[in-house]
């Protein structure tokens, strides 16, 4: 696709006009790979700003230079500024004699409950005992979904040396206040010396004010150690709005100077998008928060870390 720019070989100073056609192409290319349109534009603008006035090397083309610069920017966006080490933090909490609490939130159907179960599997494999708090008290079957996972996970992992189940479910059925159930679950975990509490919440649209308020309350009163936003790799331009509004709601309804915001992202359904990997860029660009896990399928072992280089290669391919 960059062949038409090959003729620009030669040492020269890059002007806006030189860059424009290559940047336009590049912008369309990454939009096609599912990067949100306005983020694609911003990325290309930043590439332009970096390159304008630079001298083009003798053997490089404008297109290649643009591509290389964009590649560096994207790797930079995806590489976590801050490591989230769940195992270490959970161990630290254990030593302090309190449970490590993770809350999962996001819009409807993105994979919160399923990836919660995968993360539960991973924690058990690492020797932690887990309590799942069923705080989606709205969607039909939500509690039974978690009960099924709890049963399957216990079948895969024998009880510990004290005969305790590796995972338990804390549920109070449907229609109850989610924040209250989360609190009871955390207290239960503390009393029973369970290491980690995974709080499942109902899916909600980022514009649904009452539901966003309820989520903020859950997070405010329970102060989890980690707030994970779950988003699917299938999402298009909405990724930006979802993350902004979830963060905004957490900030607005907290009445605190230092509110708890989203700490990290779980990017799900990565197995369904081929090379249209743009959502990873949209999400990290929007929040500056790391992608902590990538969901790559529907079984417990389909959980990965993000490989920034591989994602960027797929993006620019």
């Amino acid at each position, binding site marked *: 696709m960059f062949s038409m720019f090959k003729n620009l070989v030669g040492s020269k100073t890059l002007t806006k006009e030189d860059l424009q056609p290559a940047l336009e192409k590049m912008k*369309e290319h990454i*939009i*096609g*790979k*599912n990067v949100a*349109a*306005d983020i694609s534009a911003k990325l290309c603008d930043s590439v332009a700003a970096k390159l304008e006035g630079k001298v083009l090397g003798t053997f490089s083309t404008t297109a290649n230079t643009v591509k290389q610069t964009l590649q560096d920017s994207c790797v930079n966006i995806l590489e976590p500024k801050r490591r989230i080490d769940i195992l270490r933090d959970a161990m630290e909490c254990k030593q302090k004699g309190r449970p490590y609490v993770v809350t999962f939130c996001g*819009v*409807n*159907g*993105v*994979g919160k*409950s*399923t990836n919660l*179960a995968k993360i539960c599997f991973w924690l058990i494999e690492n020797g932690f005992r887990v309590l799942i708090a069923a705080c989606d008290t*709205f*969607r*039909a*079957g*939500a*509690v*039974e*979904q*978690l*009960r*099924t*996972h709890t049963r*399957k996970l216990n079948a895969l992992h024998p009880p510990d040396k004290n005969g305790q189940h590796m995972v338990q479910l804390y549920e109070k059925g449907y229609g109850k206040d989610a924040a209250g159930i989360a609190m009871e679950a955390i207290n239960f975990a503390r009393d029973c010396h369970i290491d980690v509490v995974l709080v499942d919440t109902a899916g909600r*649209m*980022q*514009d*649904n004010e009452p539901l966003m308020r309820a989520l903020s309350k859950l997070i405010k009163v329970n102060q989890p150690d980690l707030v994970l936003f779950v988003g*699917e*790799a*299938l*999402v*298009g*331009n*909405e*990724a930006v*709005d*979802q993350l902004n*509004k979830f963060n905004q709601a957490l900030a607005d309804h907290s009445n605190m100077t230092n509110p708890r915001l989203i700490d990290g992202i779980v990017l799900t*359904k990565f*197995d*369904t*998008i*081929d090379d*249209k990997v*743009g*959502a990873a860029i949209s999400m990290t660009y929007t929040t500056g928060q790391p992608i902590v896990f990538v969901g790559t399928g*529907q079984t417990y072992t389909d959980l990965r870390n993000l490989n920034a280089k591989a994602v960027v290669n797929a993006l620019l391919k």
Partner: protein
Amino acid sequence: MVLADLGRKITSALKSLSNATIINEEVLNGMLKEICAALLEADVNIFLVKRLRENVRSVIDFDEMAGGLNKRRMIQSAVYKELVKLIDPGVKQWTPTKGRSNVIMFVGLQGSGKTTTCSKLAYYYQKKGWKTCLICADTFRAGAFDQLKQNATKARIPFYGSYTEIDPVVIAQEGVDKFRDENFEIIIVDTSGRHKQEDSLFEEMLQVSNVTDPDNVIFVMDATIGQACESQARAFKEKVDVASVIITKLDGHAKGGGALSAVAATKSPVIFIGTGEHIDDFEPFKVQPFVSKLLGMGDIEGLIDK
């Protein structure tokens, strides 16, 4: 309104034509750029957007065209035509027949809203007096049968499913046979979420389709989906005979343009939209009125037919 933002942007781009004193290539390109940007922001598939741009350009020949008014009309009409093409596959919507069994099978990606929408559709027909039922042919997703069962019970809709049978093909067959025997008119089959990358899941879908012999296969698409929609939709269509599309989660902020590419890919019309999690958050969808509303124009039909 659904896609309202997009409609507003397109209308304003078209207005730029009326405001320009002369209409030349530059004005046309400026307008097309605006329209295409709006479509891309709404997640419309990039290839469809490029095609729209090229098709509009190819109709307009500035050298041959007469006065300003005519040019304006021609450009507007070309844009309308292309937009309608995006939303309207030009085939008639499937409708059930009274007094006999109509089997409707739901398919789609994971989490798109199939199970919820199955109940909504069943409730919709039941309210209209059809003898309606639901079958849960999802044995994969944890809690899937409980989900359908709770929805169906609440709405007093007869249902069929199993906690022990693990083969969805068996359940689908048994359920459809049973309800056909009992003369149900609308028999809705819910299936597991799946994606084209996993052959075994697609094969399973084909088998469920073969044993239930559906009169209508509905592809359920989430309004937030981006550029990956088109290839998934096409793959579903290639495997089973998708005849209708339902777009869900339009109560959110999403503009639903990505889901629209499912229309082009499956050559099937959008028949309903989902606008919330409750069973009555559901609306029939009619293409033509939608397009006119979208563009805020009463007279587009007149423009298009010429």
